[in-house]
């Protein structure tokens, strides 16, 4: 996958996330396409590239969602690094481990947000376990779909 394809994928993820936010906010709240993108990049790209692209994806998410700038950038950079590290240690070429990784990424996001908010003295509402499970399942399904589609692209 060349760099421009990776950037194109990022743009597509951002666009779909925006569309979902405008037309299907209930779905948008339960899936994080930027996280799926970061996991995908981290499992398919070199670690340096994955970390940079994860950072850019997070910044773009910050710009689009209007949260504290750098919050998602920090989380996605760290997520790309962790997933890349795990990907270099274990095999993630089967749907089940990939699903597990995507599911875990959904839990990583609010935990990281909580820690960062605490560090900066900001208030943060941690989502319920039920919500997290739904987010994890949604991310897992959509992520596997992304892997399946991406594997069939030229």
């Amino acid at each position, binding site marked *: 996958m060349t760099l421009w394809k990776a950037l194109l994928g990022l*743009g597509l993820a*951002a*666009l779909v996330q*925006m*569309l979902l936010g*405008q*037309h299907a906010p209930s779905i948008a709240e339960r899936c994080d396409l930027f996280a799926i993108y970061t996991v995908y990049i981290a*499992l*398919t*790209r*070199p*670690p*340096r590239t994955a*970390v*940079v692209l994860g*950072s850019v994806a*997070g*910044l*773009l998410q910050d*710009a*689009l969602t209007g949260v*504290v*700038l*750098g*919050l998602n*950038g*920090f989380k996605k*950079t*760290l997520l790309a*690094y962790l997933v890349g*590290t795990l*990907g*270099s240690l274990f*095999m*993630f*070429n089967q749907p089940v481990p990939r699903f597990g990784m995507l599911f875990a990424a959904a839990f990583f996001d609010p935990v990281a947000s909580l820690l*960062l908010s605490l560090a*900066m003295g*900001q208030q943060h509402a941690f989502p319920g376990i039920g919500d997290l499970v739904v987010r994890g399942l949604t991310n897992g399904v959509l992520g596997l779909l992304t892997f399946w589609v991406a594997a069939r692209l030229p």
Partner: protein
Amino acid sequence: MPRAVSHRKPSLLLFLLLSLHLILMASSVRGARGGSLLEDTLLTLFSPFLRSASSLTSGFASTWHRYVGLRGVEQENRRLRARVGTLTLEAREAEEARHEAERLRALLDLRDTAHPGSIAARVIARGGAGSARTLVVDRGSSAGVARQQAVITPRGAVGRVVEAAPGVAKVLSLVDPNSGVAALVQRTRVQGVLVGEGENTCRLEFVSDNAPVEVGDVVVTSGLDAIFPKGILLGVISEVGEAQGLTRYVQVRPEVDPHRLEEVLVLRSSPQGAAAEAVPPPAGDGS
């Protein structure tokens, strides 16, 4: 998973990027009081993408709403077309009712002013194979209609009753060859008998070759046949032929077109009253 990549961990790069994000976050939090240069810079950097995404989103939403609107328009168009069809039909019916009301009003005026006691009837059939020589009206003997009664409209004479059943009656129109009506030319008082020619014309018989008649002269009933009252319009002379012996051919175009008749007035009593009933019908009346 095939990964032809270096496994060297980008620890330094990670540290730099995380530091950058922390600075950004700190700057953003401070910026809540008055603004952030970094945030503005990043927003400026991302603004082309934001604008593109926004325009794409707007375009998509606009297209979607137009599509939905178009479906609504199509449904509304179908509904309005059906409504237009219904209203057109209603308008035609209303127009027809207006014409009918005008005709009936004229008929009633005629009955009330000139022929009180006469019977208004509606034409329900035309006799013969496509011809209009005989008419069937929806009033019969039970309503007082009897043989040899004159049938007229506000425009002129139609014919006479030749058969009267309880519910309907048959009327022999002026254009029937068996029809004969005593007539006179209104302008010169020349008298004759108006006989039907079978189609849309009649001829005035027994007009002498030197009688002063011209095309355009009005022909009215003379009342001598004891069926029609005197002075009812029959038609207009449309052709005057050369003399044939002692008489000449005079063609009359009837004023009333039997093909377009819908309502008529049956005169209950002829000028001679009961004497009219005694007059036997001409040959062929029963046809």
